[in-house]
């Protein structure tokens, strides 16, 4: 085993932070960095291949979120530079198009949850503060339960006459809880309220087909490339065709751009020359998730690539948890449990790759500092302090009422399709040893 502090690359257990760029994705990108350098907006020869690549990627992404028979207009996919841009665009478009339902004070209303990513909360905040962006809004952040899941009824009951948008993440990045977005989308459609979901963490880990169903699905969906094997710097926003022309909505700029004004690319919604190599990459990454593989459980069945990966990741997650529990609980003479998982206990309600685990009596920030050169993961607490009251910890864990003694010791471990059993066994051993050191065992 190599010693700490060497240049050896450590075990990577932070796939929710970002994923490596997979070799077939790199392979798909390279031609557009070399021979096919043309501008897809050009009408001459050099624009044709890049344009085809961009259109093909749109189709590939749509197949992730729609059933084959439902494939709508490929231009319902708008490529952006990142998930934050997609989320900001979704919110801004929705607000600008719903000004006709503002209340007597000119205020619109948005419904979200108290565990959203800052790309949503900070954006909403910028519209709700005094002197902030227009149009002004008020926001209802519906609380989640102790497993990190929001109630469908609570969301729907929060809707007001001036509600312009409901925005709820598909799956939480910290604890992996999957939100009931399919049901909420359907109910919002019945109430003619725009529904957006940030699916960044969900792609490649669960079945999203039907999320963009033309009749019952979401109106706006954020997809983020670097969460499923594409490079950082490419994302997409799905916009249901005609959703901005229904129920009295009308864009005063008649379908134009609201964030990046320029050459009319992406159907006029996002100016700027398309990032062709990266678009080719995200398209290839999406295709990989739908390639058929033999099921490891039922050898006569062929399953999609995402499902194959999900089964592998679930097995790695389980192995990791067992190793941690076996390594730590046997030293535990106290009556209370030392190791506590955060998030849903039902595997169907959480992502297969995410293990948020609270270690009682541990400061996860300090533990990370001790293992950071060998095991890459993230922590639920931020501060290094001798006083437990001075230690801040994740607002997500607070929202879930995770007991502070576990929240302060929470690690977020997220495995990937290429995580091996040896990775897991090794990482668990390192974490257990470091935890024991902190506890003086």
């Amino acid at each position, binding site marked *: *085993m*190599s010693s700490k502090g060497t*240049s*050896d*690359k*450590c*075990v*990577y257990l932070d796939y929710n932070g970002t994923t*490596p760029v*997979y*070799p*077939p994705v*790199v*392979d798909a990108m*390279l031609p557009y960095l070399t021979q096919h350098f043309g501008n897809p907006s050009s009408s001459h020869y050099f624009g044709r291949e890049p344009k085809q690549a961009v259109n093909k990627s749109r189709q590939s992404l749509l197949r992730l979120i729609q059933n084959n028979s439902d494939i709508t207009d490929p231009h319902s996919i708008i490529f952006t530079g990142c998930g934050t841009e997609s989320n900001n665009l979704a919110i801004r478009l929705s607000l600008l198009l719903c000004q006709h339902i503002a209340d007597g004070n000119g205020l619109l209303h948005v419904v979200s949850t108290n565990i959203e990513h800052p790309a949503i909360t900070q954006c909403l905040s910028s519209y709700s503060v005094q002197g902030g962006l227009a149009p002004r809004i008020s926001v209802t952040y519906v609380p989640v339960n102790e497993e990190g899941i929001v109630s469908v009824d609570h969301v729907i009951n929060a809707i007001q006459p001036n509600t312009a948008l409901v925005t709820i993440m598909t799956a939480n990045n910290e604890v992996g809880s999957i939100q009931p977005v399919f049901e909420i989308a359907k109910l919002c459609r019945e109430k003619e309220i725009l529904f957006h979901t940030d699916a960044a963490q969900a792609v490649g880990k669960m079945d999203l087909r039907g999320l963009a169903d033309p009749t019952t699905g979401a109106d706006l969906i954020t997809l983020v490339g670097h969460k499923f094997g594409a490079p950082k710097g490419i994302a997409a926003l799905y916009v249901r065709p005609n959703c901005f022309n229904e129920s009295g909505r009308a864009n005063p700029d008649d379908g134009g751009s609201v964030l990046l004004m320029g050459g009319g690319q992406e159907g006029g919604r996002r100016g700027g020359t398309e990032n062709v190599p990266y678009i080719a990459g995200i398209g290839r990454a999406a295709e990989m998730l739908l390639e058929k*593989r*033999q099921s*490891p459980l039922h050898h006569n069945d*062929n399953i999609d690539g995402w499902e194959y990966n999900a089964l592998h990741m679930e097995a790695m997650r389980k192995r990791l948890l067992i190793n941690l529990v076996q390594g730590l609980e046997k030293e535990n003479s106290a009556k209370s449990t030392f190791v506590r998982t955060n998030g849903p206990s039902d595997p169907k309600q959480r992502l297969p790759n995410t293990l948020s685990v609270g270690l009682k009596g541990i400061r996860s920030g300090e533990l990370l500092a001790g293992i950071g050169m*060998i095991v890459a993961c993230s922590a639920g607490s931020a501060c290094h302090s001798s006083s437990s009251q001075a230690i801040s910890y994740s607002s997500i864990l607070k929202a879930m009422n995770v007991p502070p003694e576990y929240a302060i010791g929470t690690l977020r471990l997220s495995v*990937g*399709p*290429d*995580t*091996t059993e*040896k*990775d897991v066994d*090794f990482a668990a051993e390192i974490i257990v040893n470091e935890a024991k050191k902190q506890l003086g065992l």
Partner: protein
Amino acid sequence: MSATSASLSLFRSLLRESRKVDNYNFRHYAIRRVKIGFQTNRDLTGNEASLALREGEEQLGILRRQVVLGQLYPTAPSVMENVA
């Protein structure tokens, strides 16, 4: 070359290239993927077998290019390389 010897040759080539992949996790994933892929398709015949072989050849091309890239831009060795 018969179909059986062609697929055997492809299998060996894919495994050989997979073992040369620079990145520890990608290398093990590639090896696993090759073995499972051939196991899945071992009973294919006719057109299906030809299509699978063609796909395998494409994957071999990808692997070879990525091996070269890995040699040009090597990553730091994983700590797992030294773990028994």
